[in-house]
Structure formats: C-alpha cells, structure tokens
C-alpha cells in the first residue's frame, strides 16, 4: 500500500496573551509543532505499514522551516517527507489549501489511502480533509476511531458521531480523518531520530505541481478575514441569595439557560 499523511505545522500553544496597555497580542517564542491530531494520523499509517509493509509519505504545505517538522515526522517512522512551499500558496483558506494539496498528491502519483488528523488546532475547521477528498474525487470518512479491516479495494472502520459510532465500509482509494481514540502515538527513539537526521526532505514549489494560480493561495480563497479581535471574558462571580427554594429556582434557571453543546 501507499499511504499519504497530510501534516500541518501549528503553534505549540493556543494561548494568546494580551498586552493590557497596548491591547495587542503578545506571541513570544511559541514553538511550532506538528498538529497534535496529525500525530494520530502518522501513528495509524505507521501501524498499517508495520502490518502490511506499506510506504508512508508525509505531505505538508507551509513555510520552509516546516522541513524540520517533516523530519520529526520521519522520526515518528514516516518514510518520506515532502514539503510544498512557495509564497504563491500563502494566504490559502481551506478551499485553496485543499486544492494545492490535491495537486501535491497528484504529483506523488498512485496511492491507496490518505490519512489526516481530524482537524488542525490553530483553525479547528475540520474542512481540509473532506474538501481534499472531494477535490481528488475519492471517498472520505471523517472522525475515524478504529480501522477494522483493510482489503484490496475496501476498508471497514468505526466512525465517531454525535450519537455513538457507525460501522462503515469505504471504497479505496479513500481519505480518512482520525480522532485521538484511534491509537496512542509513539515517541521517537534514538534510532528513529538518527534516521530522521539523515533524511532528505523533498521540496516542491508552485511551478512543479502544475496548478492553476487562480485557485491557490489568497487568490483562490473565497473567504477573507475581515478583522480579528480578542474576546472579552467576563468572570462572573455571583453569589445566589434567598431562601433555599429561591436559590434552587434561580440556579435551575441558570442551568437551563447555559449554552452547552449537549444536545
């Protein structure tokens, strides 16, 4: 099998500190890391590789510094790292990113399975996986928590939904996005790090993927960021007074009005 993992480099922390005087963002020395969800994708691909003898590509689109991140992916037992880097890719939203990645994947050639993390922690959109599959015209399934079986043209897996799980059967080639329940990623070993240090990361530029400029980067992005701002959280510290009945009444109203994701 040939497996492709899509990997994104994200900031190691989502904490945005504000300078109280200038009301601006303080972002000092934030280390860049592999999107945590992509680690599960890598691990799952490596587990398939260990069982079936597959070849695992790690594909990323990002700034030139991301070569180090792909090296890290190799220390996690990915076989080859490919970085698509070009200013023409910059400013891409999920649609333009999906398009560019689809062109990068076409350059790799034949493949059986693409695995992505459920979402990236810097954007949390969970859109690139499905969009990429759709652009490539292949099957996709999101939020996979377990691969049950892989046959030559089909795989069955468990998908997490709001209501529980679905057991599904997916035609290959396909793209799946994986959740953290799927496995526990291993850490690199001294040996795998030695391999990674020596590895060569393939760099792919815009010219090499035969892409349409109108569909890549900022130009190919239908969505635009109009404004960003830091949300103001009011720390409500309220003591509920009254008789026991009144207290219970007020609290139940508060509870029923709290906007939670519980359906």
């Amino acid at each position: 099998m040939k497996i492709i993992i899509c990997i994104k480099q994200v900031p190691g922390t989502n904490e945005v500190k504000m300078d109280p005087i200038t009301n601006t963002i303080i972002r000092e020395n934030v280390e860049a890391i592999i999107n945590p969800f992509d680690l599960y994708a890598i691990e799952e691909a490596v587990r398939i590789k260990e069982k079936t003898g597959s070849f695992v590509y790690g594909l990323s689109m990002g700034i030139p510094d991301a070569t180090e991140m792909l090296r890290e992916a190799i220390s996690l037992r990915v076989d080859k790292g490919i970085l698509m880097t070009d200013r023409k890719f910059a400013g891409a939203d999920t649609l333009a990113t999906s398009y560019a990645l689809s062109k990068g994947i076409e350059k790799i050639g034949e493949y059986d399975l693409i695995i992505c993390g459920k979402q990236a922690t810097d954007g949390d959109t969970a859109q690139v996986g499905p969009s990429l599959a759709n652009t490539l015209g292949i099957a996709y399934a999101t939020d996979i928590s377990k691969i049950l079986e892989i046959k030559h043209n089909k795989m069955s897996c468990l998908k997490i939904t709001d209501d529980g799980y679905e057991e599904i059967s997916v035609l290959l080639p396909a793209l799946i996005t994986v959740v953290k329940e799927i496995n526990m990623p291993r850490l690199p070993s001294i040996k795998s790090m030695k391999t990674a240090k020596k590895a060569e990361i393939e760099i792919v530029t815009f010219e090499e993927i035969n892409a349409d400029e109108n569909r890549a980067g900022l130009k190919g992005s239908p969505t635009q960021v109009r404004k960003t701002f830091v949300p103001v959280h009011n720390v409500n510290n309220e003591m509920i007074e009254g008789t026991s009945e009144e207290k219970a009444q007020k609290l139940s109203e508060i509870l029923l009005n709290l906007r939670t994701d519980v359906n």
Partner: protein
Amino acid sequence: MASINIIKNKCIGCKRCIGACPFGAIEIVDKVAVIKENCTLCGSCVEVCKFNAINFERDKIESVDLSKYKGIWVFAEQRYGKLKSVSLELLGKAKELSDVLKTKVTAILLGHRVNELCHELIAYGADEVLLMDEEWLNDFNDHIYGEVIIDLVNKYKPEIVLVGATSKGRSLSPHISSTLKTGLTADCTGLNIDKESKLLVQTRPAFGGNLMAEIICPNNRPQMATVRPKVFKPLKPDYNRKGKITKIHKPPVEGFVKLIRNIDNSEGLSLSDAEIIVSVGRGIGSAKNIQLAKELADELGGVLGSSRPVVDIGWMPYSQQVGQTGKTVAPKVYIACGISGAIQHLAGLADIETIIAINADSEAPIFKVANYGIVGDVNEILPLLIKNIKEAKITIDKSYIEHINTYP
C-alpha cells in the same frame, strides 16, 4: 500574486503591527517592520497601522454573478425522524438575517418518511421547505446528501447556506463548498449582515477560542457557514405559521461509503468527555446522598464526579475522582456539591467555562473560583433543584406533544 508590503518611508517602527499579528510574522529590523515568511496574509496588521504604512495587495478576483443568488437555506438535520435542535436554532437565526436581507428562509429536509417534520420547520421559522423524501436517503451519507444539495443549490441559487456543526454537518458541508468552490466558515459563534455590503459577516473563534475572527466571502456564492449547537436560540414555535412545502424527486445517487450499522451510545459518558459534571465532596454527608447528585447529573445529561476525600472513604470509585491526583476535566459546566475546594482539587478545574458551587461553608475556597455560588446545605438544595429542572423539562416536552397532536 497577493502580498502584504511595508511602505518603508511611512513606517516609523512603532511595533503596533507586531502586536496585532496572530502568527508572529512581523519583526522590526532597523526600525522598520519586516514581514516574515510565515505571514499567512490574514491582513490583521493592515488596519492597526496608524501611518498607512502597510499595503495589502490583493489579486483581482472575478466574482460570480452575485445578483442571481437569493434566499437563506438551512440544512434540516434529522435522525430517526427527529430534528436536531441546532437546525431549529439556525432557522431562528436565518429568520433574523432574512429580515435584514428582505428574503426568505428555506429549510432543506432530506430523509425517508420525514414529511411530517416540515410543519415543525415552518413553525420554527422556515418560509419554505425543500423536501426530498426517498428510501435511498434514509441513512445520512456525506457524499449522497452532498451531491443532492449541490444539485439543489445549482438550481435554486441561495445566497447563504447554514449547516449545524454536528459531526454530520461538519463532514457534509465541506463536500458541498469544495464542489461549488465557495467559502465555508466553520463553527461560527456569530452571524450578521453587513449593512453596506449586505455580506454575511461570520464570527468564529480561532486559536482555541483565544482570538475571534470575522470572516466574509465577498466573491463567491453561496456564503456557507456551520454553527455549533446551542450558540443561537430557537424561535418560539408558532404552529399556525404558513409555509410552502416543495417536494422534489430525483433518481438515486451512489456513494463511496456504506453504512454497515449504527452503534448508538448506550452507556454513560466518561468523566473526561463529559460536558456537564456534577461532583460531590465530603459535604454531601453520606454515601446515600450521592444518589441525589447522580439524579441531577442524569437530568442534565451529565456525569457524576467526586473529590478525593469521597474516593478515599470509598463512596465513589477512583475513576470518578477530579483533581490533581485524579483527572483534569474540561466540561462546560461543573457543579461542585459540598466540595470545599482543596488546591489539589481546584487544580483539576482549570479550563472549565462555568463552575457552580454549593457548600454550607461560605468561606470554602471553591467559591473563589465559582461563577455562581450558593451557600447552603447540599441535601436541601439538590432535591429542589432536581424538581425544578424536571418541571422545566416537562414543559418543553409538552409543547412537542401538543404540536404533534395538532399536525398529525
């Protein structure tokens, strides 16, 4: 190619743009701002520059004929013939937006034996329902549902499409948007119409909610957004509202993915996954009183947790212990019953949105971190609370039953 450039003779090196950049992609070199390679062209820096020293050069983009697109669509998600609450919430929001745009709200309902849901959709704000009731649409399928909706969009040309950010909605909507090559904004927490441009302004959290971004989709249609459940409130249903129901038939579409079986959650959630945790401390008094907290947790769809002393005396298993030596939990709501709040316990509560504390001791440290506090006997407050919540629920259920009776 699009780019952000510093106009060197205008830049005074005031660093304001550095503070505005969410990506740390600007630095000052020789008292002039320099855009680094990791710039994502988000444009956050442009407006904060007081000296007009940042130039955002966008490429000219040919837009589609926007005037052809009219109306707001809401994808009506249902399962086993029951609508998801988020779809009703979105109808309410869509109605509000449609008033500004002077257009109508259309619910898209796909499934099998679901026509009776049309009336409910209308009651909650839909002016029209596009209904496809087919056996082959019985099971939700990203690909099949996606292709059907793409066809409908191409035919009817809505200007806005809203989808609930449920697991299905989040998987379905990128299929639609990427085929239509239009924008899709995930997990919006705010939707507004810009007065001048009439564009949909979509507010969404970024960087784990630490930053908010306003997103627009100026040149492509439809403008698509997903919205998390409970962000908006549904309208009060009006079962006398009239609306149009359009039935559409299509030949079946084949998908790449087949559902083999559904495995619905039967057992309860684990502590770390729970959205609501009702947690008990020594103040609960006795092991049998824990049942009260369990009942409250069940009523709220939450999970029962506990502080360490309660585990130590064997009233609760270790798996339910919250706190530094137990689990760090991240529910939306944490109700601490009779927990005084030792530091070790409070350390496990760092990321909770709403903490509610009930404790007899007004000096208990838990009140310092609580958003809402009640000084009182847990065993007196809890039964009253459970009673109130049960009653409130019955009222909601009744309204469902009533309308079903009215519209068989």
